């Protein structure tokens, strides 16, 4: 099946790049309703739940940069590169009863895709649902996998959040497709 690490190496060609970023902390925020002590605890950290379909950038504990995107009506994924801020958030949410934080740093890996030919790549490995607008994020089917596509900020780049165990498969599709672009 080929070397795993080699399979995850960055893909780079004219107008398109895909890089696995392993330095993010990712967690799933789970909640039963949009009111409750989880929301209060989040607010204390400077964060709020985004609407379904939105990618929100915010400043969390210690002013650290956070990215939030709703995965479902009862789940939001939150990610940051700041380990201390992530720990602070987890601690703040630990006593909550109306929801919880589930660490997924080992399970959800972000792949950053950038370049002028993003659209050509995404419509070959997924459907037109992969063409997420700037500031939006949603889950769709890419390379036969369940993947969240987020377009934070001005949307020039995309973040694909994929289940770690399937990351080599996603990279396989990207690499083969880019080679023929």
């Amino acid at each position, binding site marked *: 099946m080929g070397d795993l690490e080699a399979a995850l190496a960055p893909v780079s060609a004219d107008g398109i790049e895909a890089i696995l970023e392993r330095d993010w902390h990712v967690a799933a925020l789970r909640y039963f309703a949009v009111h409750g002590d989880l929301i209060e605890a989040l607010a204390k950290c400077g964060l709020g739940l985004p609407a379904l379909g939105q990618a929100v950038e915010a400043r969390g504990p210690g002013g650290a940069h956070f990215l939030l995107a709703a995965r479902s009506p009862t789940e939001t994924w939150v990610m940051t590169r700041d380990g201390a801020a992530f720990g602070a958030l987890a601690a703040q949410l630990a006593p909550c009863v109306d929801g919880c934080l589930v660490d997924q740093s080992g399970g959800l890996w972000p792949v950053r895709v950038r370049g002028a030919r993003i659209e050509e790549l995404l419509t070959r490995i997924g459907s037109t649902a992969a063409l997420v607008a700037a500031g939006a994020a*949603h889950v769709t089917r890419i390379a036969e996998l369940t993947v969240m596509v987020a377009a934070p900020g001005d949307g020039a780049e995309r973040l694909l959040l994929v289940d770690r165990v399937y990351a080599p498969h996603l990279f396989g599709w990207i690499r083969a497709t880019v080679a023929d672009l």
Partner: protein
Amino acid sequence: MLRIRCIHCGPRDENEFVCGGTSHLTRPPLGASDGEWAEYLFFRDNPKGLHLERWRHAQGCGAWFNLARHTVTHEILAVYPITERPPAIVERTPPSAEGSR
């Protein structure tokens, strides 16, 4: 491949979804007779026309929802939350045999 409008995510391709069969089934209580229970487990209507069914947006938001579909033309007449009753849907005249598949 159908185009299905998820109640949260909007229109997506059918391969993002999983079909959950007929909706609004009434589960008989534990004390029901064997016949009533078997009827619930094994028997379904197979209408040529309007069918109310459940779908899950498995490779999307993961939500279950209801969907009203015409089984011959695949026209989707409505989508509505899983816990709700169907909206007032006017049954269209089924197509004649010549035009159907």
